[in-house]
């Protein structure tokens, strides 16, 4: 495998015409040798264009693609040794699974004995061993997608593999298993991989680093943990996480000289570390907090709820193995989502207390994250 560098790529469709659109705008990123990467974004963000530029189907308007330092911008796809797994499984259905896996090797003149050894190794890994002599058209899209992946990684000289929304045809209840096998193959063979998807769950589970695109630009290219904990702006905060970060518009007030976020009648302390970075005269400010960080307490008249903001539950949903509560802060129009365990007993209409631990609060000014320096 190899290192793939995307250098200052810009791509314009229909340049010079009224339909001119900038699909990709000055994107830089380096896929390290053997690393798993994902390219994530809503439809129309330019991720498919960028993928085609890397695979060689499109020549960028500006910028270059480097594989192990060598400029391949002008090379056709075949000469880049970049394999691709497509949205739907691409299978040669006049050959059995073995024939499919052997195809790239036979085309390269690899001796049959070596082919057989290599196929068995890959079939073991992808758990296709019993199916080598089956006709792929009887196997269904999940297994075919694994065969297509196997064909991509069977060559020892493949420099990278691109995945283009490979789970599209996979039955939802089978995704977990297929994802695991794909990930295990990536780790075992040290594959340099780029996985394009609109599904953050697939991106975050597959990749060590995820690039998030929006309107043709690369917004943040970072580890899943950083994207979640330290989003660079409100877009990432909202986009990553299911549901996304709570983004609550606030006014700034001063208390003992230090700024304090004010939502309606409620004051919320910001972490000590960011205090010094905030100008108390700012407007257009938001605080952000993950639903998983919001602490929920069922209102109990006898107990003191000093730290807790009073709120009323309007919706309870079951999402991703947890319950997500939507609650409006009393005397405001502000809705907050909070996550509780799947068997936490709570009803719509209930009065609860919410607490935002200061260390888990992000601060945004004009949609950009403010960090402690």
């Amino acid at each position, binding site marked *: 495998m190899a290192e793939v560098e995307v250098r200052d790529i810009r791509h314009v469709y229909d340049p010079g015409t009224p339909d001119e659109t900038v699909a990709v705008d000055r994107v830089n990123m380096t896929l390290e040798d053997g690393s798993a990467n994902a390219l994530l974004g809503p439809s129309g963000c330019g991720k498919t264009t960028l993928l085609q530029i890397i695979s060689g189907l499109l020549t960028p308007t500006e910028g270059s693609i480097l594989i192990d330092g060598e400029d391949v911008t002008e090379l056709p796809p*075949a000469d880049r040794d970049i394999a691709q797994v497509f949205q739907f499984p691409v299978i040669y259905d006049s050959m059995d699974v073995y024939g499919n896996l052997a195809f*790239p090797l036979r085309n390269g003149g690899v001796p049959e004995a070596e082919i057989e050894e290599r196929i068995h190794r890959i079939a073991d890994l992808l758990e296709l061993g019993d199916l080598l002599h089956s006709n792929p058209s009887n196997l269904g899209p999940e297994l075919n997608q694994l065969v297509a992946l196997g064909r991509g990684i069977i060559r020892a000289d493949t420099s990278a593999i691109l995945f283009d929304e490979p789970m599209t045809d996979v039955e939802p209840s089978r995704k977990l298993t297929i994802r695991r096998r794909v990930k295990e193959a990536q780790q075992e063979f040290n594959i340099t991989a780029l996985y394009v998807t609109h599904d953050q769950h697939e991106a975050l589970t597959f990749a060590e680093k995820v690039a998030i695109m929006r309107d043709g630009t690369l917004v943040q290219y970072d580890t899943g943990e950083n994207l979640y904990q330290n989003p660079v702006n409100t877009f990432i905060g909202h986009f990553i996480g299911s549901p996304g970060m709570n983004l609550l518009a606030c006014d700034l007030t001063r208390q003992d000289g230090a700024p304090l976020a004010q939502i309606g009648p409620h004051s919320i302390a910001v972490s000590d570390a960011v205090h010094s970075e905030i100008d108390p005269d700012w407007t257009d400010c938001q605080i952000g907090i993950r639903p998983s960080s919001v602490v929920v307490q069922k209102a109990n008249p006898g107990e003191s709820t000093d730290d807790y903001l009073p709120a009323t539950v309007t919706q309870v949903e079951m999402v991703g193995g947890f319950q997500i509560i939507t609650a409006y802060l009393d005397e405001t129009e502000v809705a907050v989502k909070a996550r509780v365990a799947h068997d936490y007993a709570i009803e719509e209409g209930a009065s609860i207390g919410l607490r935002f631990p200061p260390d888990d609060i992000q601060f945004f000014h004009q949609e950009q994250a403010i960090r402690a320096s």
Partner: protein
Amino acid sequence: MKQRPWLFLLPALLLVSLSAFIPLITVINYSQLTILPGTEPYFAGLENFVAILEDEAFQGALGRQILFSFLVLITEIPLGLGLAICMPKEGPWVGVCLVLLGIPLLIPWNVVGIIWRVFTRSDIGVLPAFFDWFGYSYSISSSTFDAWWTVLVMDIWHWTPLVVLICYAGIQAIPKEYYMAAKIDRASPWKTFRYVTLPNLRGVLIIAVLLRLMDSFKIYAEPFVLTGGGPGSSTTFLSTYTSRMAIGGFEMGRGAATSLIYFFIVILFSFVIYIVMLNLGQGAGGDQ
């Protein structure tokens, strides 16, 4: 309420029964009779069928028909497929190619015959003059060989564009990802054709082969106009034989029996080819 859909289908059903079903029954009825002008038809049983199958003229026409259809298929299908592959897949030339291909298909069949009749006339025709130049004496009315290949070339000129159009539509429908995958897998152009284009065109090719088989079996107007079935009976095919029997010879009973035999031969051939092609290259093994 539930019967309403049938009402909509009724006109179509009536039309089909009038145009196909009733004539078929009539023909089956006729085939059992001996019908001579001026006399009452009388029942002949299978007599007509036996007589036709024993008729040397029929055997000759059938043999020529099979040879002709075979030659047409093995030329037009590969040629049409090849041209379809070579055709541009996008840009302004697509339209130009499609129009050019469409021209032969738009000309009525007997007009095609007349055009080629003019080409081959010994006095003003292009072909005799052309071959004369090379010292070859071309004559469609005296040389069986010349008559045969002229009819073949005419059919190929006339009908290959149809095969091209069918294959072209089929090729356009193959997702481009298959070709990208083949490139990445280092497949040679031949292997790409063998493992991507051909398997994906199987259904389309079955349609093209069946259409051409059935159509070539029915060939009538063009050779009738061009050669009149001659020289001798060297370009007399089944349809010409049948129409001569029925209309020329006033033997309606025999004619009907010929039609039925003809009908079953076409069905039999089509069925065999369909089954063979359906199973061809399907599934197992690959080339290990």
